[in-house]
């Protein structure tokens, strides 16, 4: 009975958000295009023979960057911006009355958006293969499944981090600047612009304890078939989720007590 209710809720939420997202196909396509920075980085790497001194061939590097593009596409999170707007406008109030944490609504929004984005990402990948025919490969079914799981875990980590930041809206009203601050280490340390293995030793010594390499570098290495420590990757991803979840619950319950229903 309970599971049926939950099932219904999940299904309805996803359906509503998916039809919502289908309205904005052009935007989502544009958004997908805006994620092609890894390809430009790849161009710098291969064009200057930078991969000679690291033990990754150009083909593996191009697969890595393609996978980084994919992982990024399916782990983009913008909940803090939606939440900030909704809370400034007082739109949160009706959501709070409902017997459902509003963050599930945002979560459904993100997942629906990813489904909408999927075909565009595939089209961009096809173009990538047209320009780089050498790098075509078919990942094994098991690695594909594992990397989908790890991409989803990476998405969850980022979603939790951003939700925690979003809860700061209850105190400061403008939380998106904190998110922009946190985006900088995510951009440079996650492996989106350069694989983590190429980082200098003094960074590699501590970076694997932070959540950043598990956001893009780990799933991308997994999918592209580059060398990576699979068990450590999954353990760290799950550890970070286990760490962030109680923080989110705590800050959410504290924050809702502070809520002043602005704009209404």
């Amino acid at each position, binding site marked *: 009975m309970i599971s049926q209710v939950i099932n219904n809720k999940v299904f309805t939420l996803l359906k509503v958000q998916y039809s919502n997202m289908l309205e904005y196909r052009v935007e989502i396509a544009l958004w997908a295009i805006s994620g092609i920075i890894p390809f430009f980085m790849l161009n710098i790497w291969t064009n200057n023979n930078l991969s000679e001194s690291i033990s990754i061939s150009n083909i593996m590097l191009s697969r890595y960057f393609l996978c980084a593009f994919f992982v990024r596409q399916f782990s983009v999170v913008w909940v803090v911006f939606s939440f900030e707007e909704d809370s400034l406008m007082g739109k949160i109030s009706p959501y709070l009355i409902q017997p459902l944490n509003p963050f599930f609504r945002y979560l459904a929004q993100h997942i629906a958006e990813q489904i909408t984005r999927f075909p565009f990402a595939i089209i961009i990948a096809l173009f990538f293969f047209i320009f780089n025919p050498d790098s075509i490969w078919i990942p094994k079914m098991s690695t594909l499944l594992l990397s989908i799981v790890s991409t989803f875990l990476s998405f969850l980590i980022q979603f939790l981090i951003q939700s925690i930041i979003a809860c700061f809206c209850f105190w400061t009203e403008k939380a998106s600047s904190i998110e922009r601050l946190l985006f900088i280490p995510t*951009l440079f340390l996650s492996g989106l612009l350069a694989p983590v293995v190429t980082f200098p030793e003094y960074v590699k010594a501590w970076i694997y304890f932070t959540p950043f390499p598990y956001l893009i570098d780990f799933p991308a290495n997994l999918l592209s078939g580059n060398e990576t420590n699979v068990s450590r990757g999954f353990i760290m991803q799950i550890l970070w989720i286990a760490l962030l979840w109680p923080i989110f619950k705590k800050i959410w319950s504290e924050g809702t007590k502070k809520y002043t229903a602005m704009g209404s």
Partner: protein
Amino acid sequence: MNLSKYIKVYTKFLHTSLASELEYKTNILIDLLTAILSLIGSIFLLSIFFQNNSSIGGWEFEQALIIQGIYTILNGITNTWFNPNLSEIVKHIREGTLDFVLLKPIDSQFFISLKKINPSGILEIILGFFLLFYCMKINQIILSFNLLSLSLITIFCSVCILYSLWFFISTTTIWFVKTWNATEVLRSFLYIGRFPLNSFSFSLQIFFSVFIPIAFITTFPSEVFLGISESWKILLEFFVAIVFLFTSRKFWLFALKFYTSASS
């Protein structure tokens, strides 16, 4: 057109938007921290590139830092003026409040391009100049009057091109209403401005100079600053800037014919 009126109006703009932005003082601090971190991040990325190769696209590390400096200045200008105003334009058009702008006895492009200012970007501009001064020291550039004026002229041209690009995209809001994601695409392409143009493959170099003139925005002024630019490049940049400014102006006037004043 009387200049004194426009200057007077602009000081009023400055006053009102500064007053409203300074309400969020911590935000300004966080934004400054973001700017510093993102500069450190991109220098870190550059150092990864250069640890494998002593020159990239014919640029040494010390010379590539100049590009970072100019990019930081231009990014600061974007954050100070273009970004906050662009989101206003989108709002004006979506809510139909552009009517009030058009009714005012002042040029509409002037009004919507300069209404708002974000003070935290100014700190980023200062940061960029500091980096340039440092580059002058390590590259042993002797600042003559000629070099200074040429550099300032080319940077000014870059600002004009950048402004035209932003304004061009915001103008398309009149037809598409939501252009937020189009600016994301532009933003991610502009990111390429952090690297020397020669470090990309030939086809991308063409793409970045003909379709999206990112080459003109950072690489050309940096070459001028280094004293290795040829005069035709400076003339070309000047010419491109004028063409862009002129086209964006014409495009705005053309687009206004299609403005239908939503929700009024």
